[in-house]
């Protein structure tokens, strides 16, 4: 049983590491702000779920697991919110996603 949990948590941790890395690569290599944000924020949440999930399996039932659950919950709340606020601020300031014209002031209404 312990073996199964170990293997499961290793799989989760490895997958999390891969997602973290892909997110970093995307944030560096993508051509413009919105695509970078896409890579960073999507993989951020996924990686957090996988890595913290993996550690939770290792921690077993203890105070640490509860704290990890809290960390995961708050990360899942704040990280997308920050991305959303960032994207909307960027749009409002007139930074164009790709093509087509959006008047910065029109969007504000």
């Amino acid at each position, binding site marked *: 049983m312990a073996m199964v949990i170990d293997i499961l948590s290793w799989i989760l941790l490895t997958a999390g590491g891969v997602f973290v890395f892909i997110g970093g690569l995307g944030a560096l290599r993508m051509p413009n702000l919105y695509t970078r944000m896409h890579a960073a924020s999507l993989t951020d949440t996924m990686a957090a779920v996988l890595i913290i999930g993996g550690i939770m399996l290792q921690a077993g039932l203890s105070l640490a697991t509860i704290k990890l659950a809290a960390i995961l919950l708050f990360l899942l*709340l*704040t990280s997308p*919110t920050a991305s*959303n*606020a960032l994207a*909307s*601020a960027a749009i409002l300031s007139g930074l164009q996603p790709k093509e087509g014209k959006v008047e910065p002031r029109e969007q504000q209404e």
Partner: protein
Amino acid sequence: MIILFSVFLLALLVITALAIVRSESLFTAVILSGIFSLLMAANFFLLDAADVALTEAAIGAGISTVLFLGALALTGEQERSGSTSRLLALGVVTVTTLIVIYATFDKPRLGDPDAPVHQHVGPWYLEKTPELIDIPNAVTAVLASFRGYDTLGEVFVVFTAGIGVLFLLSAGIARRPEDVPPADKPGQGLRHYLVPRVVGRMLIPFIFLFGLYVQFHGDYGPGGGFQAGAIVAAAVILYALLEGEGEALRALPMHVLKWLVAGGALLYGAVGVAGMLLGSNFLDYSVLASDPIAGQHIGIILIELGVGITVTGVLLCVFHAFAARGKV
């Protein structure tokens, strides 16, 4: 292996510091300072300093960014280029760096248990903490009890800095809740960012709760008054950012904040005087209860509370001083 992680983090730290100094835009420099603080906290954590890392996290993650931005809003964010004696400065700095690096070869290696630092008082504190104070966190024991004088001094420095900022900049702050000007336009605060407002409101109670946990769990884990004060201040600052500064002043008016600033420091001093009145030395908590160890526990909780209150008060006063100045 961990030493390699540390080296990597240190390299990132140096690169970040270079970029901060080189960037022309002060705004960029402030954002990079946020990253610098994160790296610093990670390094502290790798060096076994959980309490210090927690303090750096509580201060660096929000409050220092907010303060620098508050100042930038008032002073302008572009640095004019041209530093006159650049070559001379570079020369001085390079030579000094080389001298300091040369000096490090005589220093004890990282983690050497025979280093001079570990021969005096440090081991004594570790040995006597369970016996005299009986709390697991030796850092809190040293901070609050063994070196209570030092901490009292630090609290008064924080207090004085807060008073100084209020002297310099407090002219524009509304003193009572009634004086707070009504929001001058509906877009006050981050109103048009709906999502951050909703989520932020949800988070604020948790940040408060966590601040209280850090405050009162400081005897057993990383934490204590300094960290908790910064976390609680961060919660109120988040409220001010989301709802507008006036709302935060209505919730926690300036005269209350001033009482907090003075009250925390007073509470600390009063605990010391109480020890004297009960027939012992200043800041000796053993006499506060019939059992010396219980007395120590009471003393530590009280003075940590004083520290937390003063730190919260000072950080919030400073925040309001900068924020209100912009509106004058």
